[in-house]
């Protein structure tokens, strides 16, 4: 197990290094630099002199050749120094710290919600397999699964934030809190945040809900045909006990893998949905950092995404061995 872990970690490090090389090369190839996307630079009256530009390039390390600049970045990154954002003039770590809260607020809520709903729905669909109500449910879920989340987001915004605005069902259009949030009382703040969360959480949830539900059902269908289920029934156990204790417990293995694979999306945010809802999360940060050519932020976020993806895969494999004693890594 230990040697397996060490091997996996080393391979993971190699992959990470390759990813950073690729992304660093790409962002330095992008036309435009952080200097000419800065709004302060656009002002013709305050056009910086050549010497100023030279100086700023030196500060940002843009004057160095590619490999030197990369080496410089890598040395700092290994020491966990992610650099300072060009556009916001703050350390990147601090920026990420600011943004991770709102992202988690959405992703954790939606994850919990979809798991809580998907398992009972999947079990129900297994029991009622082939019946008209199960067919209807499955078809509905499949339709939802195919419904692009950004389209759903726009439809929901149109319905709840525009058409129903001012009525009892009206919900806020953008952002994670209203203006004047600071002046509200504690209770009102929670209510305000809650109202802002409903639409984004709904968009994050319905797709994965449909996916998990189908996933539960597909795995259950396989298990329910096993001999030991028939044995359990023959022993006279109640149908619910058989379903949950004997069948569902045995579908947990693929479920756990799935959990590991959702790790990156949990922290990574969603570029499109956060963009549509103007939600100040990680996805939005990433989107803006590309627009502003904010190299340190782009690099840090990509690094984070990749670490999470690799970590998620590794965790899934470890969990796998943990849940299923038949699996051993050597």
């Amino acid at each position, binding site marked *: 197990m230990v040697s397996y872990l060490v091997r996996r970690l080393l391979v993971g490090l190699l992959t990470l290094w390759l*990813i950073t090389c690729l992304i660093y090369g790409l*962002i330095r190839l992008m036309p435009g630099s952080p200097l000419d996307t800065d709004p302060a630079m656009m002002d013709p009256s305050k056009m910086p002199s050549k010497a100023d530009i030279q100086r700023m390039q030196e500060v940002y390390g843009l004057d160095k050749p590619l490999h030197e600049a990369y080496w410089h970045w890598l040395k700092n990154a290994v020491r966990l120094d992610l650099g300072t954002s060009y556009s916001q003039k703050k350390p990147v770590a601090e920026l990420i710290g600011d943004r991770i809260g709102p992202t988690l607020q959405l992703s954790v809520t939606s994850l919990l919600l979809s798991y809580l709903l998907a398992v009972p729905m999947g079990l129900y669909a297994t029991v009622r397999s082939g019946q008209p109500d199960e067919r209807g449910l499955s078809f509905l879920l499949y339709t939802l699964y195919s419904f692009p989340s950004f*389209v759903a987001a*726009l439809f929901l915004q149109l319905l709840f934030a525009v058409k129903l605005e001012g009525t009892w069902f009206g919900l806020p259009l953008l952002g994670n809190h209203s203006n004047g949030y600071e002046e509200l009382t504690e209770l009102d703040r929670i209510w305000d945040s809650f109202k802002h969360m409903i639409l984004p959480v709904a968009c994050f949830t319905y797709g994965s809900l449909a996916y998990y539900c189908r996933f539960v059902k597909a795995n259950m269908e396989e298990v329910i045909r096993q001999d030991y289920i028939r044995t359990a029934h023959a022993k006279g156990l109640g149908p619910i006990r058989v379903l949950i204790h004997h069948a569902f417990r045995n579908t947990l293995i693929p479920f756990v893998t799935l959990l590991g694979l959702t790790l990156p999306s949990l922290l990574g945010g969603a570029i*499109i949905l956060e963009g549509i809802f103007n939600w100040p999360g990680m996805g939005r940060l990433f989107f803006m950092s590309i627009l502003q*050519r904010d190299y340190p932020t782009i690099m840090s976020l990509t690094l984070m995404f990749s670490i999470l993806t690799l970590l998620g895969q590794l965790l899934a494999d470890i969990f796998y061995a943990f849940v299923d004693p038949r699996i051993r890594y050597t």
Partner: protein
Amino acid sequence: MWHRLNQIRATARKRFRRSVLTRTQDGENPQQKNPAMNRNDSDRVIVSAGFWEQSWQRFRRRRLSMLALYFIGFLSVIAIFSPMIAGTKPIVCRYKDQLYFPCMGYYNRNWENPVFQKDRFRRVYPGNLERKDPDSWAIWPLVYQDPHRPVRKGEWEAMKGNPWGPEGRPTSQNWFGTYKTGFDVFASMVHGTRIALLVGFVSTGIAAAIGITLGAVAGYIGGIVDIAISRLIEVVMCIPALVLILCLQAVIDKVSIWNIMMLLGLTGWTGMARLTRGEFLKLKETEFVAAARCLGVGRARIMFRHVLPNALAPVMVPIAFGIAGGIQTEAALSLLGFGAPPPNPSWGTILHSGRETLQSGYWWQLVFPGMGIFLTVLAYNLIGEGIQEATDPRLADPRN
């Protein structure tokens, strides 16, 4: 020699797919599929329905998947004939004793005859044709609306100019309403079908070509090549697709719709590569590969003529899902304002404009393109699922 090999292949495949010989045929059409067997015993041959034929029969039994297939067929017809359905350029016209097809200009600007530019039509045909040549005639598209510009007043008989803003709601003139400053949503959507389908096919085609080739090479050759390709797959997989696309897109200065298709293809091949690699790892140990190798068949020929046809079925599924994903990603990019430049009216572009005026509540700018994207994605997903079930050997009907 060759047909012996073919026989080994055929039996191996049969065993592999667990199909049972049942259908009896008297040497008519199925023999074309398997000439080796035909030559051996020509009078009465037992031939099972081929794997693809069986799969197709199973696919056909799934009503929803077939419906989805018909829907994609319908969309393809719309896409191919889009300039004849909605446009302001005649399909055929006779002008100064010459036949022209100005509607071809919608496919490619250069296909519109320059004579109309020289005669100063300024893209408005109806009045100009009559004025400049009284003997001219023309066959017009079904709906006189243009995806690239609003129709102005008096351009076409008694037609009013396209309204915009709150007046742009669906009417008998603008079936799906208007967006921006009077662009017709229906015409844009009809022409956008071309982009939507093209994006799906081209991007997935590129992805499949890369993925299958790399996966095949990695799986069959193995060793250091396999390690290198597997690392590459992992690297591309670890970077979220949208991140990679946005980075790559920033590198390209002027982005065309073809660039976007290429980017989608370049980022979407990893799943297929992994699957193909796995299939090749499994299949390279089979008898028919060993037989082919003994006969001295070249490596490339074994890979692509012998192994690949057997590995193709599982790869078909991610291809269908990939098309759906490609269409979604393109629409999402357009929605974020990173899509193809304006002369291409994609469904995402209409959504983008609808989002800008969201607070005014112009529902028609969101509902029609949104439903278009949804239905297309749904159709491809249903097809993908149909293929999955139809080609799954575990679900094969033993009686077949």
